[in-house]
């Protein structure tokens, strides 16, 4: 029977990309994340689910040090990317964010052309030696984000002129242009219609072949559809973390069960 669960066995084979140990996050006096231990696998989609305010977005933002920008926010514990502590003083957060990219809830293209949106990251990180190389990165990123066919004839048009779903795929293209190892997505589909959502989900599934994707979502059906691993957060605790099929058919913790089945708990 185990042999038939291909998705599950594929997950078991994947190596740990990010390891978090005893992570605590405080916003001033409030304790937002409590003692979270988690191993996020490489080449796997990991979904973070939980009610609003449970800490899932806060934890996601720890993974590329986005919380550094919030003055009252304090992070304790260890977060290791390929075994290296990302909170080490020698780590440059800008470099880190090139390795751990992020896509946000609302599409936020720069007020520049489609081309410039994608080329921006590779330019500032010096990933292209000349225009030809940059063109190639832009094209391959747009292709991987399934936007190339729609955008190739209007690369100089403003990114903000695209539809919502296209803008979100543009943001994904921008995030993958720097060849990150991990892609963090904070509710990437909540502003999209079902068709655009399906396109982004298909894209997420394809991106999994190249890197680790961590997605925060309020849609449990989305978590079930796109992820191989699901982590359930509640009141700042990581309550349960496991193979997605198991979480959705037979969760071990009653709090997970209450949440995913839509009960008062």
């Amino acid at each position, binding site marked *: 029977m185990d042999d038939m669960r291909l998705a599950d066995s594929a997950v078991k084979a994947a190596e740990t990309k990010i390891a978090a140990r005893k992570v605590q996050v405080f916003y001033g006096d409030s304790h937002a994340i409590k003692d979270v231990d988690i191993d996020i696998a490489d080449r796997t989609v990991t979904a973070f689910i939980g009610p609003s305010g449970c800490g899932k977005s806060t934890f996601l933002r720890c993974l590329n040090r986005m919380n550094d920008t919030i003055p009252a926010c304090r992070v304790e514990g260890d977060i290791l990317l390929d075994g290296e502590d990302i909170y080490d003083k020698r780590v440059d957060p800008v470099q880190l964010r090139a390795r751990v990219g992020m896509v946000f809830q609302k599409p936020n293209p720069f007020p520049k052309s489609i081309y410039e949106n994608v080329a921006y990251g590779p330019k500032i990180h010096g990933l292209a030696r000349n225009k030809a190389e940059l063109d190639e990165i832009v094209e391959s990123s747009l292709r991987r984000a399934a936007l190339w066919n729609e955008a190739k004839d209007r690369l100089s048009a403003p990114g903000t002129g695209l539809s919502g779903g296209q803008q979100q795929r543009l943001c994904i293209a921008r995030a993958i242009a720097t060849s990150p190892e991990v892609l963090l997505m904070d509710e990437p589909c909540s502003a999209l219609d079902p068709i655009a959502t399906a396109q982004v989900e298909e894209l997420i599934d394809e991106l999994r072949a190249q890197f680790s994707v961590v997605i925060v979502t309020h849609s449990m059906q989305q978590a079930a559809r796109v992820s191989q691993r699901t982590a359930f957060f509640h009141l700042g605790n990581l309550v349960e973390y496991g193979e997605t099929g198991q979480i*959705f*058919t037979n*969760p071990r913790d009653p709090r997970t069960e209450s949440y995913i089945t839509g009960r008062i708990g």
Partner: protein
Amino acid sequence: MESQHIMRAFDRDLEGIQAMVMRMGGMVEAAILEAGQALEARDDELAEKVRMGDKAIDALEEKIGEEASRLIALRAPTAGDLRIVLSVMKIAASLERVGDYAKNMAKRANVLGQMTAIPGAGGSLRRMSKTVVQMLSDALDAYNTRDAALAEDVRNRDREVDQMYNALFREFLTHMMEDPRNITACMHLHFIAKNIERMGDHATTIAEQVIYLVTGVMPEENRPKAETVTAIGVGGK
């Protein structure tokens, strides 16, 4: 899961399909008991009633199937809710089969009514069917009370039914060897015994669904089995 859904219509839908299964269970239990009674008492009218009653059981199974697929499509149940829907569908399918066996038993009771009675056979089969009804009713009680231990007990009791079947098989074989004029009647009686034995297997399946519903895992396939006659050769050896 005792707590309610935030969306109360979800609870009503889940309760609805479970109530239908329980009603179906009651109808099937009654059909078996009445078929057994018709057989022992050679009551043609009662047998006819059982035969006609199977339509209602089949219709209820269809209704449960429709409601369950509707619930899956509209409410996307997960975890314990998903297991409720899946187990309801499987239990309804098992009950429908048991209903068919009861109907078949009633049909054969009609035929047997025209023949010379085989002494003791009607009573033995009726006792056997009562044992199976008890298993069914306990399995459905276990479902209602989410009692995995009772379900496990039902599973283990299938052995008794198997042993009753083995004994009847030998008894009918003896009657047939003694007097070939008994063969037609004994063949019918044997099919009835075999069908009751199959009802026991379905009660076991239902009990296993209860265990799955409660624990989230199907029980291991190592329950005691005692059906031995499939290995009996020529001459009853």
